[in-house]
């Protein structure tokens, strides 16, 4: 897929913009605070209906304006897709080929962007909840039901936590027998989440290793691990076989709930389940969190992004648009070159990159289109 045309009205520092893009690598050059990341954010928004910088969508509207309009023409598999999003104080209204759309999940199989932002580097060191949020979001295009399953799981969890507290505080009518139906549902929906996360991580693994080695020009092995107490020990051949695995997880889930039941009643809180899980990056079996360098963190996250793009391609037979914000700072020349080479090698249809200076971009003269960003204007460079 690729973006052919983008128009912005009152979006961040773009009061009025209309621009056409080429396939291949597009590079936005500009000094600080000119609007490079804002433009990337607009492109991300039109592909995923959300910002990668903020949940507060009102802040996307230019100061002293009431609404913002983004519209775009993209191409996917030879057919044209028109998208527009109007943002105002009532929220956002999105049209796909002139028709209103209800669910974001329907949209993600049509247009999609994978974005690297320097903020993503926190992923490795951040709290587990941030990592869960990240991977849950990454799973979404591959499983439209995942959002609803997660929402159901969260409500079950809330009910169960309240009940645990009520039992602890000896509130009337609250007894351990009343826990059973919430345990059953926690296990049921929790297992769905566990399976999806496990499958996603297993699918990412081979890509992650390949891309990391190619970008870092080393033979070090990065591994992404889904850290949970609830998966059965892995046996290679049946690692991904659905139904049996689900039954095994349910068995382990049930057992650990009963093991932790006294502790849960003491804390008044659910201590078992995918809401307690984490994701861990290792390099050569060492925790990246504590042992890897800044540069290695950056290369892990970049490899993760490329892996997500590759996985999307496997599922939907087209690459998503790849957006890389300020990707060259902190990468030495050799790694920066290796990254660009890897992107060419994958043959991703369209990539957008921001950089402060033209000189910092390796392969400057090769098949790249340059744009100069200055005070909310964009022109070929």
């Amino acid at each position, binding site marked *: 897929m690729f973006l052919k045309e983008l128009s912005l009205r009152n979006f961040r520092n773009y009061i009025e913009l209309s621009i056409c893009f080429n396939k291949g690598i597009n590079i936005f050059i500009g000094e600080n605070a000119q609007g490079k990341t804002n433009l990337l954010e607009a492109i991300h928004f039109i592909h995923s209906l959300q910002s990668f910088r903020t949940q507060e969508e009102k802040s996307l509207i230019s100061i002293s304006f009431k609404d913002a309009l983004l519209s775009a023409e993209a191409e996917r598999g030879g057919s044209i897709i028109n998208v527009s999003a109007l943002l105002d104080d009532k929220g956002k209204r999105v049209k796909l080929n002139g028709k209103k759309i209800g669910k974001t*999940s329907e949209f993600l199989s049509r247009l999609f962007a994978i974005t690297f932002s320097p903020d993503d580097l926190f992923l490795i060191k951040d709290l587990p909840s941030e990592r869960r949020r990240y991977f849950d979001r990454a799973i979404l295009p591959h499983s*439209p*039901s995942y959002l*609803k*399953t997660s929402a*159901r799981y969260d*409500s*079950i969890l*809330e*009910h*169960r936590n*309240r*009940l645990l507290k*009520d039992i602890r505080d000896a*509130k*009337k*009518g*609250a007894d351990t*027998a*009343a826990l*059973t*139906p*919430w345990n*059953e*549902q926690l296990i049921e929906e929790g297992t769905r989440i566990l399976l999806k996360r496990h499958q996603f991580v297993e699918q990412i693994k081979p890509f992650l290793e390949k891309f990391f080695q190619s970008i870092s020009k080393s033979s070090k092995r990065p591994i992404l691990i889904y850290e949970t107490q609830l998966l059965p020990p892995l046996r290679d051949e049946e690692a991904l076989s659905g139904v049996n695995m689900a039954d095994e997880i349910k068995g382990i889930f049930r057992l650990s709930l009963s093991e932790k039941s006294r502790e849960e009643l003491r804390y008044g809180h659910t201590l078992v389940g995918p809401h307690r899980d984490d994701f861990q990056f290792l390099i050569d079996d060492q925790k990246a969190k504590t042992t890897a360098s800044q540069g290695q963190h950056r290369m892990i996250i970049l490899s993760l992004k490329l892996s997500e793009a590759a996985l999307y391609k496997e599922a939907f037979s087209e690459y998503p648009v790849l957006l890389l914000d300020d990707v060259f700072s902190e990468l030495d020349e050799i790694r920066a070159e290796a990254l660009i080479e890897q992107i060419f090698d994958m043959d991703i249809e369209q990539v957008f990159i921001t950089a402060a200076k033209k000189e910092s971009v390796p392969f400057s003269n090769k098949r790249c289109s340059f744009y100069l960003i200055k005070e909310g204007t964009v022109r070929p460079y």
Partner: protein
Amino acid sequence: MAQAGVLNRLIEELMRLPGIGQKTAQRLAFFLLKMDDSEARGIARAIVDLKEKSRFCSVCNNITEAEICEICSDPMRDRKKILVIEEPSNLLAIEKTKEYKGLYHVLIGALSPLDGIGPKDIKIEGLMQRLSNGHGVEEVIIATNPTIEGEATAIYLSRLIKSAGIKATRIAYGVPVGSDLEYADEVTLIKSLEGRRDI
């Protein structure tokens, strides 16, 4: 426009009803104002009668005017089956099918710890009495809503009912009949796939 006190009061009162906002309440109030005296009184009386004369059936908690509702006192009903629902309105929905000939039990609610509703706050005890008194009930069909609260209630009940030595069944999850598969949401489709049966 400044409105008369009584009119304003009626508008305020109507807005308590579910699904009625300011505008609809105004429309209804002005409509009532224009109505024939006898018609308007008829509506008022119907509301008063509803509150004065209707009560919950002492057996199944359905809405009734007598001690025991029409369904529970109907000798033609199959007394071997009891269908459990959350609200009296659910009973009306099932009665409309004219297919179910057994008895009902209305729980008047569902388990919901967040709202402080536990097993003792809904009509579970009455149901268990109906099962134990040698009334010859052979099957309890659980038709609570497919929400997490309804599902929790179903799981809780099924254990109690089975331990009383009676068959418990749960209505199936499925795609709506007569509609296109593509319009069913993903979770419904997944559940109906999981609940598939031999044909």
